[in-house]
């Protein structure tokens, strides 16, 4: 089982806050890997919110191939983070040549492009780089998106964080999502490590999605190149979120209705029963199964948590106006935000979608049985 921690704060925080919270929950994870997703960045990235940032791990040769490729495309490096690493990585952490976090200037001809077109192109470039890297085993690319950084590595989360000196350098963010385990359902592969990312949507999951294969088969034929990889059964949570919002135009309150739809009388007596019944039918292949706690970040800087249909995984939200954290266990919450009103901690149940919006003032609870705002 893995452990999850996420935080959304008005003031940028170091990712070490999340890794330390993961560390107090280490009885619940095996410390085999770590994944970090950072958004709404602080520090030096504060002033370059529009610049796409490439996150990944490269060999020296891979870096040279990257530079050639990006130059061909007209991208110029605007800013990069330099990791000053010890010569020998700690036990259990592989030796890498380059951990890359690099912000680029858009090519000149992109200036006129709409955001929609830019999104498509950024995705295409990320996938091109990923394919190049898989061919020669010299690049691993996690994300290429404005105001987003992703770091993933094998090894104990806190040890990796200290090794990368994440507390000391310039990496700070108002939204941090962290997960403490290498995916072990399938082969060890950094692409199987949560959180996952596609076009501004990111999720991470504690659990196992047993309906993975039918969901993957469905997504692969939706005609969007970003639905790929599938190295983990949890990756599809990100894809479904993207599909729901971008393709179907449905808001976050529909997510639970897609992945764990209501059944029986609860569905029949819902104010939007007609639409939800049709949605359940047409999105039947996107119904997830198994125990799952999903935490995700949306492009509007909302942070959410949902549970599976039976609420079989732990998850709690707590904080105060200005800062809220999502954690697998209460001890993680205590480590990150000790001075909060604990009586207001909230554990979302099987019908709930818990959202902290971009203003970070409150936890909104959206129950699946409530009337929905219909799309137009």
């Amino acid at each position, binding site marked *: 089982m893995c452990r999850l921690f996420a935080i959304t704060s008005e003031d940028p925080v170091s990712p070490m806050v999340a890794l330390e919270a993961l560390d107090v929950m280490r009885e619940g994870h095996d410390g085999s890997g770590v994944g970090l997703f950072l958004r709404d960045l602080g520090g030096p990235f504060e002033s370059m919110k529009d610049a796409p940032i490439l996150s990944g791990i490269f060999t020296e040769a891979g870096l040279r191939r990257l530079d050639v490729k990006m130059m061909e495309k007209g991208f110029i490096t605007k800013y990069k983070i330099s990791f000053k690493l010890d010569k020998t990585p700690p036990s259990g952490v592989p030796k890498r040549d380059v951990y890359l976090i690099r912000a680029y200037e858009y090519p000149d001809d992109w200036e006129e492009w709409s955001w929609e077109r830019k999104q498509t192109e950024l995705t295409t470039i990320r996938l091109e780089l990923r394919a190049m890297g898989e061919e020669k085993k010299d690049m691993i690319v996690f994300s290429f998106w404005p105001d987003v950084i992703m770091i993933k590595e094998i090894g104990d989360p806190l040890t990796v964080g200290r090794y990368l000196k994440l507390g000391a350098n310039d990496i700070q963010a108002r939204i941090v999502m962290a997960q403490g385990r290498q995916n072990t359902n399938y082969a060890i592969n950094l692409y199987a490590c949560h959180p996952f990312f596609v076009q501004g949507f990111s999720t991470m999951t504690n659990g196992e999605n047993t309906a993975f294969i039918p969901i993957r088969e469905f997504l692969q034929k939706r005609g969007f190149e970003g639905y790929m990889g599938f190295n983990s059964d949890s990756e599809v949570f990100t894809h479904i979120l993207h599909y729901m919002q971008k393709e179907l135009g449905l808001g976050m309150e529909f997510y639970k209705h897609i992945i764990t739809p209501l059944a029986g009388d609860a569905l029949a007596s819902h104010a939007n029963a007609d639409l939800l019944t049709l949605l359940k039918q047409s999105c039947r292949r996107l*119904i997830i199964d198994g125990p799952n706690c999903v935490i995700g970040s949306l492009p509007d800087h909302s942070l959410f948590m949902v549970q599976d249909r039976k609420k079989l995984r732990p998850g709690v939200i707590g904080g105060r106006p200005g800062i809220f954290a999502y954690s697998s266990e209460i001890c993680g919450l205590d480590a990150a935000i000790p001075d909060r009103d604990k009586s207001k901690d909230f554990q979302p149940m099987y019908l709930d979608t818990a959202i902290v919006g971009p203003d970070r003032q409150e936890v909104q609870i959206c129950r699946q049985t409530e009337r929905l705002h219909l799309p137009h």
Partner: protein
Amino acid sequence: MSADGKITPSSLSIKDLHWQIDWNKDTCTLCGQCTAVCPVKAIELGVFRKRHVETPMGLSGKVTNRFSIFYGIRQKSEPKHACIGCAMCSQVCPNDAIIPRRSDEADKQRYHMDQGGQPMKRGGRRKAEGPGILDRIKFTRISMLTDPALDAGRHEFEIKTLLGRVLPPKEQIQRHLKGEWAPPVREIYPLVIGGMSFGALSPTMWEGLQMGVTYLNEEMGMPVRICTGEGGCPPRLLRSEFLKYTILQVASGYFGWDEIIHAIPEMKVDPCAIEIKYGQGAKPGDGGLLMWHKVNKLIAAIRGVPTGVSLPSPPTHQTQYSIEESVAKMIQSMSMAWGFRVPVYPKISASSTSLAVLNNLTRNPYAACLAIDGEDGGTGAAYNVSMNHMGHPIASSLRDCYKTLVEIGMENELPLAAGGGIGKNGNLAANAASLIMLGASMVQTGKYVMQAAAGCVGSESDRCNVCNLGICPKGITSQDPRLYRRLDPEHVAQRVVDMYVSFDTELKKIIAPLGRSTSLPIGMSDALGIDDRDAAERLDIKYMV
């Protein structure tokens, strides 16, 4: 055989028969029940003359003969009276004095079952014993990470499926918001009672099935559906609210459809769906067959035909020229008849050409499903040669169709129904789960229902299988009131309910350890494994040893 008896080519001895009757003189009470009950008159009262040689001790007198008579059972050896092994004689015998025994070698009667140049016809399933591919598939992806594991007896499970054309999500939402027509979709239980006609089945059997299905729906909350088969539908059912649990079948003989069409204005509810039968797994390329023995006044009235004539349906729908045209026109006509409120779908026999029909359906926006019937499916009457040698296994045919749908991204839009030998070896839930995970949205079974709900004794090794002759000893497939009165519809209904409720539990016992409960695991092929490399490769599932 008498001294001046003649031996003809078809003179058989009891040894030549497939079944021999073991009769015990010591325990027989001579009550005569066995001879009365035997459906093929294989046994009759035997009067036996016995000679006793009486030799006095010490040669004190002449050796004499004494003759006595005793009564018992004599087995006939003519092919038409060959014992069918149904064992009704054993069932009625008060002293267990009689039982049929299978011959210890291949029988010779098989060469003589074509008297008068008529090839052998029978009911039942393809002759094939032992476990099939479906029985060998195992569920190997036990979800160790599902912690706490799902409990088949405690947790909520959604064991339902969809019958109907499902639109892609975006189109579905748009049509709903604009208030436009969308294809009808039924939410049903994934185990459907496959088409067995009123005519093929006795009135008591039909009534029992309908009562059982109704009870499951109304009292157990299980949306079970039953298909009529090609033989029409009793007028009262057509005009009742229970029609919604019924799938009306139309096939190439159109039997009973005059009555159905005329009843449409008087229907209280729509039927669940319309199944257009193009083929049957048990006898692909051959039409339905109700032999004259079973066409009595009631059957003739419902079907709209004269009494006492055999009713062979043509191999295909004769009014059209090609399957594409036929499917399109039939679906359109049937949809129109019910105002596009009822799902309409074709049923075909599994074949290497199944994909041609599937591809056609993907382009027909009104096609609600494709039902595929494999070679192990049952039938009420067919030529023996068709049953044994024609057809295609359901597993690979279904898998090919499902993978084709996945390839074009339509696996959720066009449901597949699989039938043909589900539960043939008693493994109903395991077979059904395998087919669902190979891609079936639902499975259909008929023969298993006859066995479980009515005690059919037919087998895949030449036992009974006289459904075609109207002499079913259990009264399941007979139209003779003396026979079908043996079957109490209430008891059949009870057994249908028993069967479904236990199936439901068994299905949960399979899918719960796989970590599935929120939706039916259609296409969850990663859960399946088989100990046959070729089968694993063909079905695209795991090979395991």
